């Protein structure tokens, strides 16, 4: 299965609006708790509302909290974020402590994170800080002061020996041998 077949919104790790460079802004802008006053599945959410919700609202004055009692409907929490994302979460039969933790997750995340597929685990606007490569980038500094042409830098050590070169060497060797023979004869 390729990434195309996972129906998730692709994205990068980014802080919205350079959040934290200037000042930190909580990205959760409003939260709606929908519940039933009599149904058992809303029990945990009702407990949360009775015991923790006022403290939550006091600690986070920037989050607008709405309560929406609905008769004989399942408990739901909807979180809306500054970047326009909306997270819908079913709280059916969840206990008080579970709901506390889920709401903490909703409060601290920066958008609809669970439905984004991260394309990479890091992100940068500037992949290179040394600029584009050129043939001069990693040049040996010794070349700056070298006297050219220089056998050390200009030697041909990549190609195999040419036929001409081989013949020349053979000829030289032969001549050398003759001379030696002559020498020894003398």
């Amino acid at each position: 299965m390729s990434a195309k077949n996972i129906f998730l919104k692709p994205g990068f790790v980014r802080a919205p609006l350079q959040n934290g460079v200037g000042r930190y802004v909580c990205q959760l802008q409003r939260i709606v708790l929908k519940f039933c006053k009599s149904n058992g599945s809303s029990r945990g959410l009702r407990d949360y509302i009775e015991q923790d919700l006022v403290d939550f609202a006091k600690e986070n004055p920037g989050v607008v909290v709405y309560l929406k009692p609905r008769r004989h409907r399942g408990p739901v929490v909807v979180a809306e974020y500054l970047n326009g994302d909306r997270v819908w979460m079913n709280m059916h039969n969840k206990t008080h402590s579970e709901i506390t933790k889920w709401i903490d997750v909703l409060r601290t995340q920066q958008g609809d994170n669970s439905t984004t597929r991260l394309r990479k685990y890091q992100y940068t606007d500037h992949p290179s800080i040394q600029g584009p490569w050129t043939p001069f980038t990693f040049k040996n500094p010794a070349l700056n002061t070298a006297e050219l042409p220089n056998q050390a830098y200009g030697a041909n050590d990549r190609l195999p020996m040419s036929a001409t070169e081989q013949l020349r060497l053979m000829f030289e060797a032969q001549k050398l041998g003759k001379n030696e023979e002559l020498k020894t004869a003398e």
Partner: protein
Amino acid sequence: MALIRRCVPLITKIVRIHPTTVQTQKIHRWVSPTLMELKRREDKVGKRINPRNTYLEWNLEAELYGFGQRLNEEFDPDLLLQAFTDRSYVIKEEMKQKEMDFDIKMKDNRELAEKGDKFINAYIQNYLETVLPKFPMEGVKGVRNFLVSEDTLANISLNLGTKDIILAAEYPVDKYILATNFKAVVGALLESSGEERAAHFVRDFVITQLNGQDVNEYFSIEDPWSMLADIVKKAGGNLEPRLIGEVGRNTLLACYRVGLYVDKKMVSSGFGESVAIAKEMAAREALKKIFGTEDHMKPIDFKLEGIPKPASQTRYQISAS
């Protein structure tokens, strides 16, 4: 008859083994064309989006309070409401009131926006002059124009969650309304909390947009060579370009490297596919060094307290040359 009676089990057996109808998903033939037609009509009219403020769970007062608290600022509630009231909304309401024969005066955010716009421009100009002390005025102006452009301000406004709160005739609101709204919010803050708070607000939300950006991109230099020559001449130096590298001449991958020397000391180097381009790149590199905006420059300081003093007089002016 006996023959038929004897054949009946055989026939039922055959039917059981070879069913004549293949089991298929039962979707009526009309479903697909109907859905296609509905989709076509929806595309033609445009999808209707319900504005958030028409929902049952909506309280404008709480939203405005939350807006101020979220940004850690204290706004005058009336001024903030005025900042969120767009001109188009006021016109629409007045038309409605005319029909119903009553009159309630509403204030729109044009005045606040104008005030905020002036403040934002002046503050950003001073701030940039302070944090980029060697950058020429034209460059500072370019960076400022980027920061106060409609796109940038609209993006900031959108990400501060104003989209749903704005009172406008249309929904979703367009960029102009978002940008005006942001300026008006700054104007409202200026009136309710004073200059310093407003300045820090602009610093934290507008100037931080420069984080990770290259300021040189907002300063387009037509002819870097003559600009550099001019500066060096004024300083009394002798500028000399030299070809210090040459690879693959007369090929597609030719690369030349030009070094710039002032009084026989290398200032910068640049490369390119021709000598002219390499020379221009070297001049740009040298200008960046002079302006203090090299690629490895220190990040811009986003924590300056208070309102910095203008320093325009002491600066190098290009327009003079």
